[in-house]
């Protein structure tokens, strides 16, 4: 289990380095790549040391859970306006007006469109943006999920 924890810390440090190197804006693919490589190493180590014992599975599951939690948390800081407001409040109390302006700025359509273009879901065209093939596949997938779960 301690090996799982050590490997997770290794993933954190490697990811912190990788996100500061090009290419930019590939935060999630980078962590998946690093996590997969470190994870494979952990699998090899644990199986060679403990075989199929419960200790092996505990180490792998602990590593998996911590990595998933990390990805969830940083995607939250990237995409959630509420999370960004909470982080902003670390600097001290802030007026409701200032927070509302910050939230509105983060919600700006133009800002979101820029992000969607940067991530390949939209492309700029004459007269306005167009949905790319990647964007269409994404819409189709989410549409299927919505039809399946039918959330309220």
């Amino acid at each position, binding site marked *: *289990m301690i090996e799982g924890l050590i490997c997770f810390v290794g993933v*954190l440090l490697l*990811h*912190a380095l990788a*996100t500061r190197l090009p290419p930019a804006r590939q*935060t999630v693919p980078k962590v998946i790549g690093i996590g997969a490589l470190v994870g494979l190493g952990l699998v090899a180590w644990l199986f060679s040391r403990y075989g*199929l*014992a*419960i*200790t092996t*599975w*505990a180490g792998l*599951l*602990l590593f*998996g*859970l911590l990595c*998933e*939690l*990390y990805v*969830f*948390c940083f995607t939250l*800081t*990237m*995409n959630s306006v*509420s999370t*960004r*407001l*909470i*982080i*902003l409040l*670390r600097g001290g*109390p802030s*007026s*409701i007006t200032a927070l*509302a302006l910050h*939230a*509105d700025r983060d*919600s*700006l*359509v*133009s800002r979101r*469109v820029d*992000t969607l273009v940067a991530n390949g879901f*939209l492309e700029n*065209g004459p*007269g*306005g*943006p*167009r*949905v790319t093939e990647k964007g*269409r596949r*994404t*819409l189709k997938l*989410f549409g299927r*999920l*919505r039809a*399946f*779960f*039918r*959330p309220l």
Partner: protein
Amino acid sequence: MAWLLGSLAYLVLHALVYLVVLRTRDAFRSERGVFMYHAASAVVVTLAVLIGAAQASWMDGLAIETLAMVVAVVCLHGIYSMTFLEVWSLSQGSYSLTILRTVEESPPGTPIDEATLESVGVGKRQQRLDGMTTIGLAHRRADKLELTALGMLVASGLGLVAWLANVRQDA
């Protein structure tokens, strides 16, 4: 290993019950309902494995395998629930998805109707600010919001994660 395999079987059943039976019930189509379904299960499973570990330790003394069993079962449930809830939340959609759908449904070459889309974003603003006080992360003082101790802990943790992942907190 019996505990781990038993937990795996239980989680498969837990997922099947939701997908086959509960998915169509209104109480389980809401965010709160789905979350409670998983949270309650996680509490029950954690208590069960802790009781099992305590009994094993009482008879044979605390062994590393007992501790590993507890960690494995709890982590397995954690991975299952987090994955399930993340997939479920994708079905709710997001502001970015609304923009994508609007662009896709508009005639080619049409500029985006920013005014209508802006109103969707702004409408959520008060919800976000109220949400922070409702769940105890912040409290109001006159016309200001201030983090509670819990809020500061959460904010510090998320701030550290944002720094590690080099997520820019643009002003």
